[in-house]
């Protein structure tokens, strides 16, 4: 005879299994619901966290403290540079608007285990799986992988699952970019080519993952290998995922 306690135990196990199965089946509406529910709070938290925690901002802050005295002397020179920079950005924006049409979105959060961000635009706004995401300076950020009604998931180019064709010294060396969490691996650059630290990497024409000519990053390491006929090279992406607030989705 099965005791009442054991019956309850089996009943609870069956109930939990049923709940899990139900959750797995209904995962998309559940995810969508909770992303929408936390939308406003997440926007605020993301901006506060970015302000407090961004490595880039902390480094910039430290540098600014160090060169404070120098800045006082160079303030006029910097104002001129700032004006030039603004003009340059305007020019870039014009070029950007001529090339593509966009959906503007805000970053809400980053998932626990991968290089994936959640943004506040979804299928209701015309977002679709596979769309490319860039920032306002034409820097490649990633690709849409999951779309809900009002939110989407965007995989960053630094995710190890991402790889795409790139070119260095536009339109010179062709290579392959592989995501590597904190930076990118630049693969398939033959040893006989000239690759230097600081070279700018773009998306290439000979691939169908991303549109061509988007900025990717700068070469941070370029060593010729004796073992293979290719360089061992790394690229630092131009974007910092933690300081992103607004992104552009290319339609």
């Amino acid at each position, binding site marked *: 005879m099965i005791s009442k306690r054991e019956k309850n135990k089996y009943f609870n196990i069956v109930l939990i299994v049923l709940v899990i199965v139900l*959750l797995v089946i209904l995962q998309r509406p559940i995810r969508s619901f909770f992303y929408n529910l936390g939308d406003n709070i997440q926007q605020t938290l993301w901006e506060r966290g970015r302000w407090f*925690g961004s490595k880039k901002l902390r480094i910039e802050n430290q540098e600014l403290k160090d060169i404070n005295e120098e800045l006082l002397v160079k303030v006029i020179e910097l104002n001129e540079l700032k004006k030039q920079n603004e003009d340059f950005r305007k020019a870039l924006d014009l070029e950007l608007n001529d090339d593509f049409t966009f959906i503007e979105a805000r970053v809400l959060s980053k*998932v626990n*285990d*991968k290089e994936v961000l959640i943004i506040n635009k979804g299928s209701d706004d015309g977002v679709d799986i596979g769309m490319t995401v860039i920032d306002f300076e034409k820097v490649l950020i990633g690709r849409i992988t999951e779309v809900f009604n009002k939110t989407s998931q965007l995989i960053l180019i630094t995710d*190890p699952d991402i790889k795409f064709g790139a070119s260095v010294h536009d339109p010179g060396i062709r290579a392959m970019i592989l995501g590597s969490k904190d930076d990118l691996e630049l693969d398939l650059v033959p040893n006989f080519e000239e690759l230097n630290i600081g070279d700018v990497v773009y998306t290439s024409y000979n691939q169908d993952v991303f549109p061509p000519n988007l900025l990717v990053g700068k070469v941070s390491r370029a060593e010729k290998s004796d073992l293979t006929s290719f360089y061992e090279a790394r690229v630092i992406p131009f974007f910092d995922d933690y300081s992103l607030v607004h992104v552009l989705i290319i339609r």
Partner: protein
Amino acid sequence: MKRVFFSLIFFFFLILIQTSFFVHFTSSFNLILLFLIIFLFFGKGKYDYIIGLIAGIYLDIFSSFFFGIYILVCLLIVFLIRKLKSILDQGVPSYLMISLFILVLYELIFLFLGDRFYIMGLIYNFLFLVLWLGIKYIYDFIKEAIT
């Protein structure tokens, strides 16, 4: 039942803070896991599996793994903590040992599933629990001394 409703709301805010705020400092700090462990240490034990289920659901919602992985991991954690609590003494040293075991196991599971092992995450998470248990120990000690 109050504990379940409290966890439902509390864990929701924790996951928002974890994925939108703490992610800027370290991506491996897992508030949900830490508070699940704390709840299991100091709770009455009646609704442990339901609380584990809630924690797992929130982690799954804000994850890119196959939905259900975190639910199973959290239920496994509930099962192990309940078993270990019944075997070992109830006290801070035992809780620290159990915490370390659970955190290492958690990282090993995700090393197997996602090919990642966050050693700094393990250290931060363990230090958080050491701090929490230390405060709780001092609080209990003072409370006992007063009464």
